[in-house]
């Protein structure tokens, strides 16, 4: 017998499907070419196209910018089942995300878990409307893999904190409105115990940024400088000196994001590109080295997806999957780096094009360069392997 719930869900699916068909512009169903296709929102928001604007505003009106957050924070209030359906239906016709936002994927979950109600009311709605572009201030010039060694200090000045120091690898700090930051509030405590989690307005006096040019030729990251910046005390999230707890929680989300967990796969299969570029006999690739490399990559891609599914299913039965985010991050990014390296080999001379009328080729070469950062950002592969060996395998220190 069909329960009311499953019937409701069926209706929800049909309505959603119809709504998306009617409201998602055709050009917003094409795969993203590169970062210029992303909409980031923020105080100085600008749309790359009219369709992008229409799509964002339609979704905003529907409260589907963050469909699964509570409506009191501007979310859509969808149940996990409904949210799944919406995701599936968007994937089905290839809808782009209406906005790319670290506020949604990273800060939001941390605020939900650690912020006071007042802070939630203050910060979450501007995420769900895309009004605030958030960036993340974690790494420092001398605190990369050893993140907890960070030195940016926040001094207690009674009615405010005075922040001094610098951050590095801040994504889009030059464009962002606010930054969520790890700062040292106790220099005498063991390094993990003297860190706090602070939100800072990027327009505050004393904040400066400088873009970092990458080997891809692009500058998605910045250095961020704090020169005696006054930060109101109500911008502290969680308890003083307990920021590492929030940092770890948030890194779990970041690792899953970089590892590609839950991301749609709109990429063309590597073997398709190989068939278009390499010699074949009876429509089978004749390159005796690349062919098995492609097959191994695609086999591991397929099984990695099954693994995400399996671990999600196990988590529903109460198995704790927390430490596995390191596995996801490690495996997902290693796969991506292998994929980009293979694609470059398959594309021959085109795989080396840097500036050319062939814009697609140039863009792909730059993406290849960019991919080299995947196994470094968000904790290097080596850091992840260390976490697996200590937290999961319980190997001794």
């Amino acid at each position, binding site marked *: 017998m069909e329960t009311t719930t499953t019937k409701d869900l069926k209706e929800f699916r049909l309505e959603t499907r119809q709504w998306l068909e009617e409201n998602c512009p055709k050009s917003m169903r094409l795969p993203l070419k590169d970062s210029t296709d992303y909409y980031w929102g923020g105080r100085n928001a600008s749309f790359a196209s009219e369709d992008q604007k229409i799509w964002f505003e339609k979704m905003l009106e529907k409260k589907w910018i963050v469909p699964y957050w509570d409506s009191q924070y501007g979310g859509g209030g969808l149940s996990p089942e409904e949210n799944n359906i919406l995701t599936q239906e968007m994937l089905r016709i290839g809808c782009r995300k209406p906005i790319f936002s670290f506020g949604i994927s990273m800060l939001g979950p941390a605020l939900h878990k650690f912020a006071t109600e007042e802070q939630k009311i203050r910060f979450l709605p501007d995420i769900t409307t895309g009004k605030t572009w958030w960036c993340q201030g974690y790494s420092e010039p001398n605190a990369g893999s050893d993140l907890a060694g960070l030195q940016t200090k926040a001094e207690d000045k009674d009615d405010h904190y005075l922040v001094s120091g610098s951050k590095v690898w801040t994504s889009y700090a030059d464009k962002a409105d606010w930054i969520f930051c790890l700062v040292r509030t106790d220099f005498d405590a063991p390094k993990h115990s003297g860190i706090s989690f602070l939100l800072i307005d990027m327009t505050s006096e004393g904040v400066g940024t400088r873009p970092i040019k990458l080997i891809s030729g692009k500058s998605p990251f910045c250095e961020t400088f704090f020169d005696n910046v006054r930060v109101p005390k109500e911008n502290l999230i969680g308890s003083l000196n307990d920021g590492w707890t929030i940092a770890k929680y948030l890194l779990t989300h970041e690792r899953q994001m970089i590892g590609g967990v839950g991301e749609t796969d709109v990429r063309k*299969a590597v073997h398709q590109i190989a068939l278009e570029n390499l010699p074949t006999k009876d429509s089978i690739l004749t390159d005796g080295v690349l062919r098995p490399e492609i097959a191994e990559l695609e*086999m591991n891609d397929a099984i990695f997806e099954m693994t995400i599914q399996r671990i999600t299913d196990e988590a529903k039965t109460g198995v704790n999957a927390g430490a596995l985010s390191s596995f996801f991050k490690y495996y997902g990014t290693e796969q991506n780096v292998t994929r980009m390296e293979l694609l470059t080999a398959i594309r021959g001379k085109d795989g080396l094009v840097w500036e050319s009328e062939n814009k697609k080729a140039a863009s792909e070469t730059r993406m290849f360069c960019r991919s080299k950062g995947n196994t470094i950002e968000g904790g290097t592969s080596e850091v992840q392997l260390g976490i*697996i060996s200590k937290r*999961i395998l319980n190997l001794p*220190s």
Partner: protein
Amino acid sequence: MALIITEEQKLLKDSAAEFLAMNAPVEQFRDLRDSNYKPFNENLWKQIVDMGWTSLTISEEFDGLDFGFVGLGQVLEEMGKTLTKAPLFSSIVLGATALSNSSNQKLKETWLPMLMDGSKRIAFAQDEHNYFDPTAIVTSAKKSSDGFLISGKKTMIIDGAGADTFVVVARTDEGEPALFMVNSSAKGVSLTSEILLDAGTYASVTFDNVEVTANDRISDVGNGTVLLNQILNTASICLASEMLGIVKEAFSQTVEYLKEREQFGKRIGSYQALQHRAAIMFSEIELCKSIVITALQALDNGADNLDELASLAKAKLGKTIKLVTNEAMQMHGGIGVTDDVNIGFYFKRARVLQRLFGDYNFHLDRYARYHKY
């Protein structure tokens, strides 16, 4: 369908683990080997039959349990952990699968009950070459007045010695591969045995104009390739289940060793060179778990991409079992290459399992062809 085992399947897995730890620990494997390579313990086989493991995948129509391959896979995984020797794979996974997928009702009615109660055993005779190649069948089945005459030479037959009957793959006059039941004591059948690296007994059998009746034909006309493929897929997925057990056990013993063994005044598991390699193995094993459960479920659901999943499973487990058993040997150091400890048994068994029903290269190629490259 969720990629997890059900409560019932979990119960079966736990009871299998408990039973094997008690009745068939790795020491039994060592004893059998040291008893002139005895193929298996007869008493254990009786107990396995009594527990119903031989009936798990047989249809209720023949008084089987119809419990499915996910269940059998859990048992095979546990048997992998303890390196338990029993003709479960040869007689049930191969023999019974050949019959279950046949439309020859008489053969099914006669044989399936005897396979389940363990009174008879079937061995599967397919390989003819040094390398696995299911397309390269030379053995012939020539039409005779009231049946066929089988001639050819088969090799690497698992549990071939002692089997009552062979399922023989032979090419008919029309050139199609077909499957036949051939009595092991029939005139013209001669058998020799070899012991392979895993201390297992593998038979080579010559069939010299062996007479079989028309009713001994398992596969229908035009259906031989499909049936053969079904057996190949089932075998690959079930082998992958056993390999998963070996991978998990060899890894777990190795991690324990890393926590105990001290050198330079520290436990060797504290050295990053070993930690990272252990973590890489952990990651690969996570993938192995996922493909094995996916493929077992697909086998029970009759999924239409079984070719793809079977090759994924056998390839992934083939690659990982090589990695893990090699690392297990290396991380155990000198003691690992002695016969005093058991870790070498896993390495030896792994190499044979890698080869059976197609190695990594075979299945990688089959996977690529499935996706048309």
